[in-house]
């Protein structure tokens, strides 16, 4: 790998496996995910509930509880350094400084018994030598930056005195305090009102441009993807099933799952009685099929091979990668369709 390549790739995740212990058995919620995030790029990760997108993002920060979960395989290279190998103490220097994170629930993500100012300044004290007075000034400045009016007053208030949108703004202020290179936003707008959602997304976009940081946005809202993303990763059952540039992926979805997802969006220009849905649910960790495509049960285009052969993620042209046996390239070990069928 050339040094130039490492320069453009801020984050490179390689064959990541993260599992949970259920009855002392490790079940992978993230099963072999590989992708990269380039500098200043917005990558969206989409997928329905339970597909492993949150687990993946928490794995990158190593924030999963050590008691019942484990990164069992793979590498997470951040600027060339493997985060998987880092100790908790070393990770502390990465968290909040190089990689910051905001969460889905602004209502519970802030500590209810500390002031906004305390929680905001904490991240400053964690990563830099700064006087109390300077930290307070910086905190006010940050609140102003995320569009909070009267920051001098808000700084001494408690989370319960703020609305959901304001709390998410505070979370964003906390996240950008040390100018991180990557911001992981795990469904940052899901718990908010629609109008507030748009404001928060606009804010994230503004900040991304101003701070020159990359954003990895986890969402199940394809509308958000269309508005924000440069590139999209579609996840299903712990795997990436399709990835590509956003415009290309929306125009020509290659995986049946992506197709179904796109068809499930209600459209203003069509009159339909019923909203398209994908039948069934994501298989649970214990019931994950060992062989074959994980989407086969619910796939409208499934055929014989789908339950017998495990597809690979492969290039199908136009910067598109997909994991579906409808494409020859996805057969493992380059075996052709016919040979497999004979066996």
């Amino acid at each position, binding site marked *: 790998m050339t040094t130039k390549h490492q320069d453009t790739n801020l984050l490179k995740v390689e064959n990541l496996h993260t599992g949970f212990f259920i009855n002392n058995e490790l079940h992978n919620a993230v099963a072999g995910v590989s992708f990269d995030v380039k500098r200043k790029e917005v990558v969206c990760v989409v997928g329905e509930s339970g597909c492993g997108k949150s687990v993946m993002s928490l794995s990158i*920060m190593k*924030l999963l*509880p050590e008691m019942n979960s484990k990164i069992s395989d793979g590498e997470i290279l951040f600027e060339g350094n493997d985060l998987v190998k880092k100790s*908790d103490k070393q990770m*502390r*220097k*990465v*968290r*909040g*400084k190089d990689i*910051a*994170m905001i*969460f889905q*629930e602004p209502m*519970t*993500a*802030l*500590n*209810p*018994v*500390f002031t906004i100012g305390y*929680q905001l300044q*904490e*991240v400053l004290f*964690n*990563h830099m030598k700064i006087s109390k007075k300077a930290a307070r000034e910086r905190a006010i400045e940050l609140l102003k930056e995320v569009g909070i009016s009267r920051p001098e007053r808000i700084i001494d208030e*408690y989370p*319960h005195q703020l609305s959901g949108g304001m709390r998410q703004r505070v*979370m964003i202020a*906390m996240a950008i305090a040390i100018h991180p290179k990557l911001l992981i936003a795990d469904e940052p707008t899901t718990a908010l009102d629609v109008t507030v959602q748009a404001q928060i997304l606009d804010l994230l976009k503004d900040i991304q441009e101003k701070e020159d940081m990359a954003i990895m946005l986890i969402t199940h809202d394809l509308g958000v993807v269309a508005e924000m993303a440069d590139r999209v990763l579609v996840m299903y059952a712990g795997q990436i099933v399709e990835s590509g540039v956003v415009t290309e992926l929306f125009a020509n979805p290659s995986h049946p799952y992506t197709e179904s997802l796109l068809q499930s969006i209600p459209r203003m220009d069509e009159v339909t009685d019923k909203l398209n849905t994908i039948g069934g649910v994501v298989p649970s960790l214990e019931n994950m099929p060992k062989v074959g495509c994980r989407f086969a049960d619910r796939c409208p285009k499934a055929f014989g091979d789908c339950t017998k052969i495990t597809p690979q993620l492969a290039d199908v042209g136009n910067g598109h990668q997909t994991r579906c046996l409808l494409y020859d390239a996805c057969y493992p070990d380059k075996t052709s369709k016919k040979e497999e069928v004979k066996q």
Partner: protein
Amino acid sequence: MLKYSLRRILGMIPMLILISIVVFTLAKLMPGDALSGEIDPTNTNPEYIENMREKLGYNDPYYKQYIRWITDFAQGDFGKSVRYKTKVSSIIAEKLPNTIFLGVASLVITYILAFIMGIYAGRKPYTLGDHAIGGFNYFGLAIPSFVAGVFAIYLFSFKLGWFPSNGSVDIMVQEGTLEYWLSRIHHVILPALVLGMLSTASYTQFLRNDIIENSRKDFVRTAKAKGTSQSKIYNVHILRNSIIPLVTFLGFDIVSIIGGAVITETIFTYPGIGQLFLTSVQARDYSVLMAITMMFSCLVLVGNLVADILYGIVDPRIRLE
């Protein structure tokens, strides 16, 4: 806060009147009365006794007796003790400091032990240490204080000789000296430990469970994502949340400790309110009993108020209006 407190204190008055009626009724329902304490015990002439009974108002209708008692009581005159032939207020004033000293010592021991054990167990749940603390606590919860008290005296006083088995101070030492206070502390440790055992056990388990619960909260993940160290997360973020329910117990403790002291003080023959209460029951010393019962009732009300005020102080989400 001040306005709230004042309103609450005013609200206590009808409650206290109601309690006083109950206390008075119960005292009147008990056999005998305090007459013999107020007359010449050597004069057994039935005519004299009947005269005195009439003169001292024991033949008045109950409501008149009640009004007389409550008026005196409100003015600080708790009556005369049958047994000691002196003012009830001076008897209580003599014993109260001992009980307060015992109560405070017990609270301090309870909080120190509960915090140390609770924080440890909460931080390392389901480990050997946690299970040991848990086992110790269930032991503490299961053993009644009179058994624990007797056992503690047997082990620590008779066998090991570490602590004295009775009294509140060594009678040989001069009052007011450092030695005197050391002796008092030496005397109070064992009963305080026994008295605080139950609350230590429940506080420890409570703190442990609350720490475990809070450590799974979203704000812990946020703090971690900011790069906050594990020890700071536990000692600042989680503990600050977990002390909220604990601090409010302090108000109720004021009552339970003084109430619980009845048994402990008797076992350790520690001269406090609890022991006074029990001996007064045995001697049918009504005026003392009524005064102590009223005092306990007041403490319950005050304790509740303290708990509510503390709640408002430690939890910013609660504003007392």
